[in-house]
């Protein structure tokens, strides 16, 4: 069970109605695995495990949790695990933080963490030790893999997966939080590393990490909320930085950040929802970055998750911190 992650071979025209084409999107996601006769399927193998997470979560949010075969999905996830406990994007690919986080999220969603014990390598402790091994003990930052790239995405990913596994105490949380604080800018936002400009994607990861650690008190909510709310442009969509084009996936990065600091009402949700719906391919299914753009499962997922934040009718509630169905995080995090 593995889904193609690249652009879809969508054939639809611009949607005229403002309904969410639930059935079309469900079919689009289900069919991603049957596109092995397209070069794109093979060229996006390095995103496969992320793709399964995006597709599966979108299906849950669309109220179709059983649309992908559970057993096959678990088998695929486990087939991506490497000796060191981490997961690669696909079988035989090197372990990396990004895919390890997706693996944990998928297993949590399928209530199959115990499969790590039964069939994985060394249970959830082994996965946690891979993640913990990527923390830089001096700065508190996290690397993506053994080759050392540092990015606040990895820090958030580590917190996300470890807290879901109940093993957050295997890393130095205070040091990591101090690192996040170093990434804060005077505009209230956060960058990819200390000194980098504020970027909505990195803001999501930093605020998410602070939320998981119970340290949202460190955020300057009004100032950050102001910066984030300025991401909404006249057509209703959100961009990631000043003067950039809007993109449906920022509905999530910006929207979830606003939700975490209780400022989601600072943007016009009706206009945002309308923008997202205009990005749909309502004939062939799937959602793209902008109206008329090629669809892909990444944008499909984050656009639907964005609609969920807006409490869009017919979409299940998403957890703004974890980007998983709320029912699932409620169950897991209370264990």
């Amino acid at each position, binding site marked *: 069970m593995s889904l193609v992650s*690249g652009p879809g071979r969508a054939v639809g025209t611009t949607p005229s109605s403002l309904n969410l084409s639930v059935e079309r999107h469900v079919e689009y996601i289900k069919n991603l695995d049957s596109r092995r006769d397209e070069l794109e399927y093979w060229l996006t193998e390095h995103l496969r495990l992320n793709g399964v997470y995006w597709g599966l979560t979108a299906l849950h949010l669309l109220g179709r949790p059983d649309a992908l075969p559970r057993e096959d999905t678990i088998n695929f996830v486990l087939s991506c695990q490497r000796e060191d406990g981490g997961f690669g994007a696909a079988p035989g690919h090197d372990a990396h933080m990004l895919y390890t986080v997706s693996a944990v999220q998928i297993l949590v969603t399928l209530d199959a963490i115990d499969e790590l014990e039964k069939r994985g390598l060394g249970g959830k402790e082994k996965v946690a030790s891979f993640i913990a091994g990527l923390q830089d003990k001096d700065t508190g930052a996290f690397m993506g893999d053994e080759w*050392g790239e540092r990015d606040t995405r990895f820090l958030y990913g580590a917190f996300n997966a470890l807290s879901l596994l109940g093993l957050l105490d295997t890393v130095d949380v205070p040091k990591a939080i101090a690192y996040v604080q170093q990434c804060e800018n*005077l505009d209230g936002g956060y960058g990819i*590393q200390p000194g*980098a400009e504020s970027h909505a994607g990195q803001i999501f990861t930093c605020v998410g990490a602070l939320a998981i650690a119970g340290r949202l008190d460190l955020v300057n909510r009004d100032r950050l909320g102001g910066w984030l709310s*300025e991401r909404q442009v006249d057509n209703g969509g959100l961009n990631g930085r000043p*003067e950039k084009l809007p993109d449906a996936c920022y509905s999530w990065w910006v929207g979830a950040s606003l939700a975490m600091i209780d400022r989601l009402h600072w*943007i*016009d949700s009706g206009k945002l929802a309308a923008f997202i719906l205009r990005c749909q391919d309502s004939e062939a299914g799937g959602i793209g970055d902008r109206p008329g753009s090629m669809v892909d499962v990444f944008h499909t997922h984050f656009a639907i998750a964005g609609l969920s934040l807006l409490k869009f009718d017919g979409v299940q509630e998403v957890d703004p911190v974890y980007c998983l169905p709320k029912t699932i995080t409620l169950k897991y995090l209370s264990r």
Partner: protein
Amino acid sequence: MAAHGIPRYSLQAERTEEGRQKELHKIEKYRELDQSVRDKIAKHQHTPETLQKISELLTSNPEYYTVWNYRRQVLRSEFSAAASAGSDEAAAAQISTLIKNDLLFTVPLLRSFPKCYWIWNYRTWLLDEAKRLLPVPAAQKFWQEELALVGKMLSLDSRNFHGWGYRRFVVETLRELKSEEQDGKQMTQTEFEYAKKMIGANLSNFSAWHYRTKLIQRLLTENAASDEERRKMLDDELDLIHRALCDPYDQSLWFYHQNLMCTFDPSVADQTLAPKLSDAERLDYLRREIDEIQEMLDGAEDCKYIYQALIDCTMLAWKVEGSAPSGESKSKVLDWLAELKTLDPLRLQRWLDFEQSLGR
């Protein structure tokens, strides 16, 4: 990562049977190449032939991160071979050639895929290897050339997020490699000029303004600037932004303005270019700022950023004074807020929250 800004296929682009067969053939070729690389790596064949296959594979798919890792393995073993053959100088020359050729390999890829994280990461690794394995002057040369390359990349896309981050990183490493204080100062000055040039080319470049904020602070620290010199710098920056704001509709400029206003905010002033102003000086600056911004309203009465800045400055003045909103300044804020509620309907709830916080 995913499709950004690619137009949706039209119905006519549906594949013909012939097109399908062609694609299947391409898939077969690609998978064969992938398999052959994997086989060679599994057998630890770290040879020029393997490197060639890896190059082919990465050229067809630069996002294939595992193959970049394979490339590192092959290069590492070539470095070891070079190090153990011949004199230190010969080894360094050989390693330099290997690194140089590999850097060249990634240039066309970077040009076609400027947003691909993995290519940038790989270059970073190569340059770090230069730092690790080569004498300092040789390593420095590589890093210096990298600064020129990133300059070129940023002139093609002046907002490339990776490009700016990468530039900061290259400059940091050059500082380490140069170590002598004088050179460090020189670098900050050169970078400051660079940021200035980029802003000059496009005033809306928020990335360049951000870089400028960081560089000014560094420049002042490195020069052990006096309070007087710091104030002079602040005055120059205020002057610059006021002139730039002859187009008051540009959001990037207002964010830079907001950054400068932090200088007058007692709770964050220590992170700014002039941390030691007295409260009286802060109030004086804020009053002049409010006058200056109010003048911008002339002919730009529909520009919401102006009202926002006026409110921010007034609130800051209240904060410095330790006074509660009241009297004339409060009624002005309420007037500006009324404008905002009309001019900025997308964020209406934000302004209503603010109104409530004023206790109206």
